[in-house]
């Protein structure tokens, strides 16, 4: 390249004050390969850009160096200007003579000398620049949503409504997630199921949504726009097409002793069951560990009862493959395990609270089921041990959350609101009852949230005690809660009939496995990492994979839904063109020289390097070499530095360019 134009900017006085722009331009004109050297008061202005465009055309320039401000400021501007003059934008480089020269050096002679050097470096580089075209990646316009809770449902519906097909994968027999089991929601106390179940039905009936329940993601191959996802559909033992969901089978099933997962063990279910009446799909599933036919080979009453001939005891797991363009992970949360026997007679976590030992110490999600009209008590608050209506209930915050010693260092964010809601729901059903709350701080940031907590205290008379509970014991059928009220400065003992523990939110089990399959990072607690906390909150570092809901961190329903819609919008944005366009400044391998040690592959943060096979004409494998996937490479160049034979190079910062830059400083 030997027709380079150098354009030095005065930036008004900004550069010209400390740098002799005229002298710089004259010296730049003498550099090898430079055809012409010009200056302008404001190179980024319209007349400045016109000067560049006109000179490119008049002098038939094949390379341009703009000596002005930081490339972070205006490289895009000048590359666009070059493009308008039919010069490939990647043939434009900048010399930063403002931020890194005139603004930091006041001695004019030295600043001028440095400015010439900076131009020398840029000219040396641009002589080795190559015209590059944006990389195009085809896109399969189909989305995989993993997790059918409220976040997954929202994302799936938003996308499906825009006309893009969605594959929704849910591990449980029904979608709905945690929200389906809630009674009322804060801060409005509207019925959770009334909000959610119509959305669930919409999912089931949506022509653009393929729903796989009892299913998990088995394998993810490919890359952004071009994933191939294998889904394992667990045997349901029901032909869902034939089944009408009439309920004859589960009403007749003799195996009735399995604790209901949906009621968190507070109720029982049969071996053939639907998790809850409004389940979507409204089809039962057979629990292979509880079914007498599947475990012991006898029974089969359901087969006799089924008029539709829908029972399939020989059903097998099935693998389904889908071509997918983008993936949204919305796997949600589970509760912190409050007291877990370690098998040696001790309990890890909060053993002193007696959870699991005393039937009347329950978790907040269990309390939701006790209050819910569809719950095991039909919505009457009756304690698990004897069915009595509890007259004193203690709610404890931060069980697991914000506790480095026993649990997790983070705040689970929803528990303060959940406790306030529970005290109100309790008071509305047990008018002569008294609710107590032990809390560390009340965190009620959110629209109408603090007002809601005030209402719980002021209107519904909940007693709030700022302090921790040290121990719960059982005496004469009551639970003795020993704690401290740090505001009053004294210990506090309450004899309660029921204790509800607001356990911390943790990511759902198996999220790490899934994260590894889709190459998304996760933190020490297993919450998935977004690409940037402020600017890319639903994107991840794996291109084409997005996160929303509580798998990303503790969140309430409104936040999860907001994030889900945001993820949907990002996916739709990605799909708004039929191809993805990516920066061409990426790595590529010279396969004839590659020795196939795969140091590059080990180091690549984007899993953008795969082994490729070189075969001769007879199809015999000659050797394996590294190959860069242009759909994934982000151009960091770590592979270039690691490659001992320098068989991999980086466009835009190639070995040739970099060495020429260093050499120019000789």
């Amino acid at each position, binding site marked *: 390249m030997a027709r380079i134009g150098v354009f030095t900017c005065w930036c008004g006085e900004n550069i010209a004050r400390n740098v002799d722009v005229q002298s710089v331009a004259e010296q730049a004109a003498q550099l090898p390969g430079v055809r012409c050297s010009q200056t302008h008061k404001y190179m980024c202005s319209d007349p400045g850009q016109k000067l560049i465009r006109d000179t490119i055309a008049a002098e038939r320039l094949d390379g341009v160096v703009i000596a002005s401000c930081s490339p972070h400021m205006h490289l895009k501007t000048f590359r666009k200007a070059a493009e308008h003059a039919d010069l490939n934008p990647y043939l434009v480089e900048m010399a930063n003579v403002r931020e890194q020269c005139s603004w930091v050096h006041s001695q004019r002679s030295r600043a001028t000398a440095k400015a010439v050097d900076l131009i020398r470096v840029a000219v040396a580089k641009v002589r080795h620049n190559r015209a590059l075209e944006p990389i195009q990646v085809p896109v399969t316009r189909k989305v995989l949503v993993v997790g059918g809770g409220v976040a997954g449902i929202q994302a799936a519906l938003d996308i499906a409504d825009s006309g893009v097909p969605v594959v929704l994968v849910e591990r449980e027999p029904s979608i709905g997630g945690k929200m389906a089991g809630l009674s009322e929601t804060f801060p409005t106390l509207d019925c959770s199921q009334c909000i959610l179940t119509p959305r669930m039905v919409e999912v089931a009936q949506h022509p653009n949504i393929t729903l796989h329940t009892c299913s998990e993601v088995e394998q993810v191959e490919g890359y952004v726009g071009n994933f191939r996802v294998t889904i394992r559909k667990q045997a349901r033992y029901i032909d869902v097409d034939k089944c009408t969901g009439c309920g004859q089978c589960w009403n007749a099933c003799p195996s009735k002793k399995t604790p209901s997962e949906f009621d968190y063990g507070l109720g029982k279910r049969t071996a053939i069951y639907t998790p809850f009446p409004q389940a979507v799909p409204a089809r039962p599933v057979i629990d292979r560990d509880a079914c007498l036919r599947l475990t012991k080979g006898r029974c089969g009453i359901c087969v006799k009862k089924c008029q539709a001939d829908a029972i399939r005891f020989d059903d097998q797991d099935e693998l389904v493959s889908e071509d997918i363009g983008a993936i949204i992970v919305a796997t949600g949360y589970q509760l912190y395990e409050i007291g877990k026997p370690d098998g040696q007679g001790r309990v890890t976590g909060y053993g002193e609270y007696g959870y699991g030992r005393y039937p009347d110490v329950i978790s907040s999600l269990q309390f939701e089921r006790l209050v819910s009209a569809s719950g095991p008590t039909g919505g009457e608050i009756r304690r698990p041990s004897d069915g009595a209506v509890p007259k004193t209930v203690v709610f404890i915050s931060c069980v697991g959350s914000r506790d480095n010693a026993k649990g997790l260092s983070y705040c689970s964010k929803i528990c303060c609101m959940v406790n306030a809601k529970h005290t109100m729901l309790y008071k509305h059903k047990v008018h002569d009852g008294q609710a107590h709350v032990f809390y560390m701080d009340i965190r009620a940031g959110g629209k109408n949230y603090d007002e809601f907590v005030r209402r719980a205290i002021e209107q519904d008379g909940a007693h709030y005690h700022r302090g921790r509970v040290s121990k719960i014991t059982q005496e004469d059928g009551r639970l003795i809660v020993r704690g401290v009220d740090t505001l009053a400065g004294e210990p506090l003992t309450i004899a309660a009939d029921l204790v509800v523990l607001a356990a911390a939110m943790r990511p759902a089990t198996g999220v790490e496995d899934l994260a590894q399959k889709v190459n998304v990072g996760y933190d020490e607690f297993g919450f998935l990492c977004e690409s940037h906390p402020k600017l890319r909150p639903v994107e991840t570092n794996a291109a084409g994979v997005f996160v929303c809901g509580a798998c990303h961190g503790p969140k309430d329903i409104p936040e999860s839904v907001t994030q889900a819609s945001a993820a949907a919008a990002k996916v739709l944005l990605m799909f708004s063109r039929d191809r993805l366009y990516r920066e061409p400044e990426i790595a590529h391998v010279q396969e004839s020289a590659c020795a196939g*040690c*795969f140091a590059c592959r080990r180091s690549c943060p984007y899993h953008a390097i795969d082994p490729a096979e070189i075969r001769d004409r007879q199809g015999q494998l000659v050797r394996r070499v590294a190959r860069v996937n242009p759909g994934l490479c982000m151009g960091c160049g770590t592979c270039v530095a690691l490659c001992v034979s*320098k068989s991999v190079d980086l466009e835009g910062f190639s*070995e*040739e360019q970099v060495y020429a830059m260093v050499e120019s400083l000789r």
Partner: protein
Amino acid sequence: MLQPLRETCRRLLDDGTVQVVIGYGQAMRAVEPYPVFITDPNDVGQLVWNEQCRTNLVKYLLRQEIRALGKPAIVVKGCDERALVVLEQESQIERSEIVVIGVACDGMAEARCEVCDAHQPRFADHTIGHATNKEQSAERRYAHLAEFQERPIADRMDYWKAELERCVKCYACRQSCPLCYCQRCIVEKNRPAVLDTSPTLKGNFAWHIVRAFHLAGRCVGCDQCSRVCPEGIDLRLLNQSMARASEASFGHRSGTDPQAELVLGNFSKQDQEQFIR
């Protein structure tokens, strides 16, 4: 030792397990043993084993013309076989495609043998003889380097100037290294030439820096490079400094653990250094 070695090789060739045995041969005591490539079971009598079998034969596994002979068996010492481990970690060999005949070794009368902790091969398919592996502290293993490093920095520079002045760029160090397997060596790369390939002091420094650093975290300390250097340059010092740093900073001893992650190309967020500000 020699008889069981020859018998093992004959058996492997006889029953068609392998098509070639890479071992040591020797014409007379006065010359060093040289590599032999035995394809006929009747030729196993050419194999020798004695305290002059210093050469690391692993390099020959990678040669195209030897690969063309068919599935190989290779005779290795406990120290040599570490190179096989690295080659497998770096996808250069399929361990299952090679039969490794390990020979117990009591030392080859070299300085490094005195601090050897791999007299007995650990990963071989067939082991001939028995020797005892003795733990050697890092201080002992790197004593030679530590002594050198005690010199003032200017002395060290002077030392290398004098040593590398003699380098004739014959690249014997590269040719003999079992871990130098590139299709195209970095010195043969032009546009741009990464380093000055001229046989000047500048070019010699550049080459030996590259050679040593390309073995960083990889060199297994077979000393083949120092052994073959016609100018007797002590390249071991450079290799050892990389090996010691890998061991000290990352607990990595190259070629001792097939499951270990390689030093470069991997990282830990816990990596500790004192010099980055």
